[in-house]
């Protein structure tokens, strides 16, 4: 009996291999690389459902840190990027890897920490607050700690920018003492770690609100231009990577910036958290530092 | 023309000289007893004849053609005219029928029906009728020995090489195998029967060759030979 079972298993295996060949003949698929912070909010799952249905295609979302997402774009492994790191986005466009930078949504990073605010940073702006955390952390690492994403993500990039603004060389910061902890993980895992250690950390608002129920950390600083977080979509340039599905990519981006898309984004989270996790980019272009071209509807870049 | 002619055959493994200066002939249809104590080189000699190993010195001629030192293809066609039964025969992990018909299948000559018939005959001749579908590895030592004999016999080889076929058997099984070997004596198959049992030799063999420490010390009719030990 076991023998027949095994024969069956082998036949199954053979069929599997043959079937997988059939996958080549698929419906249209659009590959989107995004960051874990965006993916973890669940927004893209919702967008995928709507987009798949409307256009009868399949949106394949791959997530990782901003670093690897940009890599995927530069290698032509995906058709669209959805990220939130202005510096790297501009470079991506400048290197002609992407067609154009389109602003989709925004919210603010939060500097969260333990309720009792051991470093006493309430009321300060982000950069001064970080400087104070470092000062107190160096003095008493048992009481004041900071957990960093440490993974080259958009959030991490923002953290490094704030350190720069505060006047510090990042390499001096992250090696200065046990008060600074590099998680090397996604936003959710980083928040959990900060929670465990009752430490400060920078989080995007969406992930924080999604995890808030399980955390005792609270937002201590939640505004200011230092913490502005703008989400952007970029189609990968077909001139550099002729295989990308540029047409569908533009349709996707147009969907995101359309009224329907923007409404979807702006209302996401209300049901679950009481307030939306994102603000739509449309209508707030100047506020978030996007040029008119980056907000134009529909997207003007052509694939030819 | 002798079926098998061996001249000045020697085999060494490194410094150990297992066989030296063997001169021997075997005629068609005759049973040659190869007698010698354990370790005298009987198995080595049989393996050389079966072309499993290559001699260190000397020549082997089969049907008047040189076989030692030839390319594998020629050896294969010569080997297919012989069959060897090892001292502790190994059964393939298959049924008795598959074991017995192995050689036939390898030669690819007979069709399925003919193989089935010949296998049946061989098993009957060996006193194991109806054993076809049994698992070869569940048999007793004596039964396995007979299957191995059947496996060789079914090929109707010109030369049959038997390495101590009854050495590991109880007297009862040994006696019945002797009976089978007697039947072989009547056929036109030549046999080299390696054994350390002189009675067996006297009963079955036409001629006897005595091997001692790798050297042939005597060859002649079995009545004439007296063992040096």
């Amino acid at each position, binding site marked *: 009996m076991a023998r027949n079972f095994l024969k069956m*298993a082998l036949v199954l295996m053979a069929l599997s291999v043959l079937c*997988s060949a059939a996958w080549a003949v698929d419906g249209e698929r659009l590959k989107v690389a995004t960051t874990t912070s965006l993916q973890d909010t669940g927004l893209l799952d919702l967008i995928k459902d709507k987009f798949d249905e409307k256009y009868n295609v*399949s949106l394949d*979302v791959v997530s990782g840190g901003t670093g690897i997402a940009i890599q995927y774009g530069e290698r032509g492994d995906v058709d669209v990027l959805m990220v939130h790191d202005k510096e790297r986005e501009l470079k991506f466009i400048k290197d002609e890897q992407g067609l154009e930078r389109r602003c989709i949504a925004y919210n603010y990073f939060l500097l969260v920490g333990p309720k009792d605010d051991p470093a006493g940073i309430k009321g300060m702006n982000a950069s001064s607050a970080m400087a104070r955390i470092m000062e107190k952390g160096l003095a008493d690492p048992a009481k004041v700690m900071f957990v960093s994403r440490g993974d080259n993500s958009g959030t991490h990039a923002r953290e490094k920018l704030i350190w720069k603004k505060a006047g510090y060389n990042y390499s001096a910061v992250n090696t200065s003492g046990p008060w600074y902890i590099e998680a090397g993980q996604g936003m959710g895992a980083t928040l959990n770690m900060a929670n465990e250690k009752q430490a400060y950390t920078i989080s995007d608002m969406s992930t924080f609100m999604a995890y808030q129920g399980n955390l005792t950390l609270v937002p201590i600083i939640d505004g200011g231009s230092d913490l502005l977080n703008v989400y952007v979509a970029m189609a990968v340039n077909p001139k550099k990577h002729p295989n990308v599905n540029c047409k569908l990519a533009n349709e996707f981006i147009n969907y995101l910036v359309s009224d329907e898309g923007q409404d979807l984004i702006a209302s996401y989270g209300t049901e679950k958290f009481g307030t939306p996790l994102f603000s739509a980019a449309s209508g707030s272009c100047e506020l978030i530092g996007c040029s008119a071209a980056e907000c134009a509807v529909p997207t003007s870049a052509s694939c030819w | 023309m002798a079926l098998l002619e061996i001249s000045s055959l020697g085999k060494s493994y490194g410094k150990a000289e297992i066989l030296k200066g063997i001169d021997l002939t075997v005629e068609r249809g005759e049973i040659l007893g190869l007698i010698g104590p354990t370790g005298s080189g009987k198995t080595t000699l049989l393996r050389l004849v079966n072309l499993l190993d290559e001699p260190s010195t000397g020549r082997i001629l089969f049907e008047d053609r040189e076989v030692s030192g030839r390319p594998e293809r020629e050896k294969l066609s010569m080997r297919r005219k012989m069959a060897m039964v090892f001292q502790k025969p190994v059964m393939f992990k298959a049924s008795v029928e598959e074991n017995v018909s192995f050689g036939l299948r390898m030669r690819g000559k007979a069709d399925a029906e003919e193989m089935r018939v010949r296998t049946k005959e061989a098993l009957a001749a060996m006193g194991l009728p109806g054993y076809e579908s049994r698992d070869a*590895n569940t048999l007793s030592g004596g039964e396995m020995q007979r299957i191995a004999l059947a496996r060789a016999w079914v090929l109707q080889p010109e030369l049959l090489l038997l390495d101590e076929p009854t050495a590991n058997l109880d007297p009862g099984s040994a006696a019945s195998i002797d009976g089978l070997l007697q039947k072989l004596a009547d056929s036109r198959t030549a046999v080299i029967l390696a054994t350390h049992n002189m009675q067996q030799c006297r009963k079955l063999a036409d001629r006897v060759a005595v091997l001692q420490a790798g050297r042939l010390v005597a060859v002649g009719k079995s009545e004439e030979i007296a063992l040096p030990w």
Partner: protein
Amino acid sequence: MRALDLIASRDPQVVEITLRAIFISLSSAFLAGVICIPLGGIIEFRRFWGKRALINLIQTFYSLPTVTVGLLVFLLISRSGPLGGLNLLFSPSGMIFGQAILVSPIMIGLTITALAGVGSPVRDTAKSLGATEMQIIITVIKEARVAVIAAVLLGFGRALSEVGVAMMIGGNIRGYTRVLTTAIALETSMGNLELSMALGIILICISLAVNLLLNRFQGRQEWRS
């Protein structure tokens, strides 16, 4: 435990993930087997310079870190890589390809061990009964079939439980390339520990079932001989 409830409720996403995981790992084991078993046979039966060294190398690769293999395969099949034109990245086919590479060392190595374990009396018997070299090889493979099948099942088990290749090559795309291991990683990182546990239990159960099957098969063979 909530984990068991989740399994019992047969949530369609969980079912989909499980079936996909089995499908992909089974395919990769088969693909690897088709190539590696003959390859193992050739390596075992031929004599060549450096044979021992090659076998040592293969055995060293048994425990290659899956993330490293994942990275190497990624570089291979990425659009910018040498096999980019095949469009394998972020697809189940790519995962099958990557996992097949991952389990190949085990399959080749265990096949070699299995064949070596057959022993010269079998080869001599086959040879003396008139088998050609190729026929001897096939006979030995048949004699070792239990161990060879065990190697394939072991490959399946390793492919099923690995996450490095599945994550890097598949991308953990919902509804397309998400499998048990990558789903566990995701759910854990999102804090959904009960769901992670449930998926983990399913994974263990499958491995258990495969092992039981294997043991039964092996046991019967051993008892016979």
